[in-house]
């Protein structure tokens, strides 16, 4: 059976050019980037070239990019690091985030709460977008950080990051945006967005897993989470994962070229949504009316158990997801969809489709057909249940 991948928000395949860069680095540029000698210098050069490539993609200075081990670390670094920086200096013990963040942000906030930091979680409306007015109201003199994701991993809905940044700047509060699901799917200009921190992950961008980055705006005070060597300008110690970072750099360069392919991706997404809405009754797109990244759609199929549909589609060769990937297969209804006001049974009946650069129109047609059959089958048997 042929397997087709529609789960690019979970992770992406490594692009051939990226693979080539990583392999050449693994085989040849194996030095420790901190070493003085020829080998170390070669590694350092590739490390810094990658930093410039990623900085160019997000319109940052290379010195503002800190490489990490992934999006989760970047989010934790911004949240825990900022809370740690702010507290002893000014007694700031309050963080504002949203109800729809990735667990890497929400669980870090829960940890801050256990450490005595107050956390405000802004609600979203049915559209999946926060109301900037709510943010204004939630700000307190002791607010240490505002953390709002750029694009949501489950729905693709984009938050008004520029507007949030204007509010936080006025209030003098640092602003972290989790950009893991936006990078490569939207033009990202950290200066124009006005963010102080921006989390990124390589494996959502056709580069390997285990590499991420955190943009830290020049001039922002920041405490590291880990202690060791002087790597990454004392912000993130540990011998750099040079091959992974080189892959991230190559992927960043590719992303600026492949921006031209995004309209086509959006048209495939449109084609999929249209086919589902036309051919399968009792369906709808969650967050449809909001600005969204072009590759993601989250669709509910009334009366269907989403988990069963994911398995049924997998057995037909189509990889999709019920939301964020979870290793143990646990399913409480999606916190994102629940926050958007979906009743639990509709949240459980929702499926995320996330397209990638290699998906074709034929694959989208085949997926729509498989969906039509699988949903009809599942609805037929649930009548007997």
């Amino acid at each position, binding site marked *: 059976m042929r397997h087709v991948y529609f789960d690019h928000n979970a992770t992406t395949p490594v692009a051939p050019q990226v693979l080539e860069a990583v392999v050449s680095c693994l085989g040849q540029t194996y030095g420790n980037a901190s070493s003085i000698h020829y080998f170390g210098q070669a590694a350092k050069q590739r490390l810094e070239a990658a930093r410039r490539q990623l900085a160019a993609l997000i319109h940052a200075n290379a010195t503002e990019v800190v490489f990490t081990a992934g999006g989760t670390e970047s989010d934790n670094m911004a949240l825990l690091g900022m809370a740690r920086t702010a507290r002893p200096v000014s007694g700031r013990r309050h963080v504002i985030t949203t109800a729809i963040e990735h667990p890497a942000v929400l669980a870090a906030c829960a940890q801050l709460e256990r450490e005595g930091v107050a956390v405000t979680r802004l609600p979203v409306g049915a559209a999946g977008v926060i109301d900037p007015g709510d943010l204004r109201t939630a700000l307190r003199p002791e607010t240490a950080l505002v953390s709002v994701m750029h694009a949501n991993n489950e729905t693709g809905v984009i938050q008004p990051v520029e507007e949030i940044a204007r509010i936080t700047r006025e209030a003098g509060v640092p602003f972290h945006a989790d950009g893991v699901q936006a990078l490569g799917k939207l033009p990202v200009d950290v200066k124009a967005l006005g963010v102080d921190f921006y989390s990124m992950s390589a494996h959502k961008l056709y580069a390997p897993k285990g590499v991420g980055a955190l943009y830290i705006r020049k001039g922002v005070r920041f405490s590291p989470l880990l202690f060791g060597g002087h790597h990454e300008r004392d912000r993130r110690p540990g011998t750099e994962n040079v091959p992974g970072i080189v892959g991230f750099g190559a992927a960043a360069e590719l992303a600026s070229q492949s921006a031209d392919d995004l309209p086509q991706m959006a048209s495939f997404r449109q084609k999929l949504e249209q086919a589902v809405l036309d051919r399968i009754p009792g369906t709808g797109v969650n967050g449809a009316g909001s600005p969204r990244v072009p590759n993601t759609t989250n669709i509910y199929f009334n009366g269907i*158990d989403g*988990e069963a549909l994911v*398995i049924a589609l997998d*057995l037909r060769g189509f990889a999709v997801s019920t939301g964020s990937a979870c290793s*143990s*297969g646990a399913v409480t209804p999606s916190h994102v969809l629940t926050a958007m006001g979906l009743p639990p049974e509709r949240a459980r009946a929702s499926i995320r489709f996330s397209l990638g650069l290699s998906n074709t129109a034929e694959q989208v047609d085949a997926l729509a057909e498989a969906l039509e059959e699988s949903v009809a089958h599942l609805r037929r048997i649930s009548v*007997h*249940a």
Partner: protein
Amino acid sequence: MSGGVDSSTVAALLARQGRSVIGLTMQLWNQRRLPELVPEGGATGRCCSLDDVYDARRVAEQIGIPYYVVNFEEQFEERVVAPFVEEYLAGRTPIPCTLCNNYIKFDRFLEMADAVGAHHIATGHYARVRQRDGRYQLLRAVDPSKDQTYFLFGLTQQQLARTLFPLGEMTKTEVRALARSFDLAVAAKSDSQEICFVPNGDYAGFLSAWLRERGERVPSAAGPIVNSAGRTLGAHAGVHHFTVGQRRGLGIAAGEPLYVIRTDPESQQVVVGGQHELLRSQLAATEVNWISIASPSQPVRAQVKIRNKHAAAAAWIEASAEGRVEVNFDEPQRAITPGQAAVFYQEDLVLGGGWIE
């Protein structure tokens, strides 16, 4: 696929036979819940642990079948765990495994089988199914020490029709040998406990922790321990700590060994007495399911099991009302316990069963 040797062997066996097999593990209980119950060094015999899922996934990979974890925690909570707690608080001794079979393993799981287009479900239970006289009949497993039909009396014809029990014809020793011949890493894994979600068998501790988690107070059920003449012999911390026939944990020094004869949640009394007071010749059972035969209009001669490890005893079974029967044993039986099942056999054939009142 629980990750144990039985279901792993079933999966491997069916795959070897060339059947199209899909492996599913039911996630029934979140192991992160009620951490206070887990002693240092970990609990034994728990279901749905990450290790078990790992083992099941390994087996699926080894035999080359698709494998998924499906989450039934919510149904398990509603249909198995909550009734389990309720029953204990009502002074009965419940069997969650039967509820799990009736409502999860052979119901919700069968729906999932439908969803993935499977015609049958196969499990590692030790039992047999045959077709006879236009019905599907449930029979005891060939290995009497492993027979699980006591927990399966609630299944329906539709459920039996779609169920395969490949281990019913084998002994446990043969199953382990087969697992070794398939080179399964779980071949030597030890057997699981009966109540999989209660760590270390501490069900009273589980009850308290579960109620606390729901923000409910553990009912203060402390009361007197009395003998059948009504004389107070001591005190206890709650009727749910006791089950009929129990001898240990009474804290009473007496000339003859004392046993729990019955518990009464109303008066919060635990009634104790000598061995002979545990004997009864009669019981009433409700929610009776005649699994292998049509509902009988005449009294039926059968061997009746009143708990899993009970040697079935000869009795007459007579319907007293819709879904109710009275069971009259030839010889008095020890510790007939409300909440347990009475399961009716004719030799290997499981006629049916019900819940002891």
